[in-house]
């Protein structure tokens, strides 16, 4: 196990067109695993688990509100997660820092609000109905 700075795994640059390559674990979770081998192992495991579930035949419960609404509800949940994550990057202690880190923290806090607005509109579009009879 190396502690060489050069060997740290860093978050990838995700091309939205290739989002499907990044199913599995959140990058905010994977970023903890800075050992490249461990990071790659988890990344591949996450993708494998997703592929096996989405491409295999199973008798799992169907989504009562339909596939698109179910998927959007998941996206909204991930937006709320990111709203919280960005908010934590912009917590008061970080925002009062001088220099670039403080600037970035304040920006993260502002963007957290923008993500919240997007999530709120999508949430209201979905409504409370989840396919109940």
């Amino acid at each position: 196990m190396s502690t060489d700075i050069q060997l740290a795994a860093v978050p990838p640059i995700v091309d939205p067109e290739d989002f499907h390559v990044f199913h599995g674990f959140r990058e905010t979770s994977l970023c903890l695993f800075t050992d490249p081998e461990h990071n790659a192992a988890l990344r591949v495991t996450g993708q494998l688990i997703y592929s096996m579930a989405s491409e295999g035949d199973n008798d799992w419960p169907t989504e009562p509100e339909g596939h698109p609404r179910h998927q959007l509800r998941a996206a909204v949940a991930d937006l709320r997660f990111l709203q919280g994550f960005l908010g934590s990057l912009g917590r008061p202690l970080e925002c009062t820092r001088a220099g670039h880190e403080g600037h970035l923290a304040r920006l993260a806090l502002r963007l957290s609000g923008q993500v919240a607005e997007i999530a709120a509109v999508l949430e209201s579009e979905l409504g409370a109905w989840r396919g109940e009879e």
Partner: protein
Amino acid sequence: MPSLPDRTPPSGPNDPPAPIPTIDPERFEDFEGFRETTLCVFTEPGANATLRALGDLLYTMALEYCQHWPVEPDGSFYHQVRAAVADLRHLEGYLAHLDTQREEASLSDHEERVSEVCGKFVPDLRAVADALETALGPMGATR
């Protein structure tokens, strides 16, 4: 010999699916691990709960153990911001994918409307990720 707990039988197509949680942003840390867009495929409640617990366990153990791993080249703060950008880009692509479903799948009227709304917010999400990425600058420039 101790016995294993009773195993809950897997659900069938007509059983209720695993619910997608309503995430309180204040408690986002309770939802580290797998993306909800990944977990939503696992509608079988037992499978969904197992993966959710695995993600949580791995994340919790990593928090304790990460001191033994390589340090982040730009420091922890910038590293986390880069991870957030990556997740924003993932969601940007995911919403764009839902937007295309109007042409690629047979949807009900309401689903078509939902798909349209997804497309409407792709540029907004892109703008959020762009703003953060621009402020970050290239790797190494932030040290």
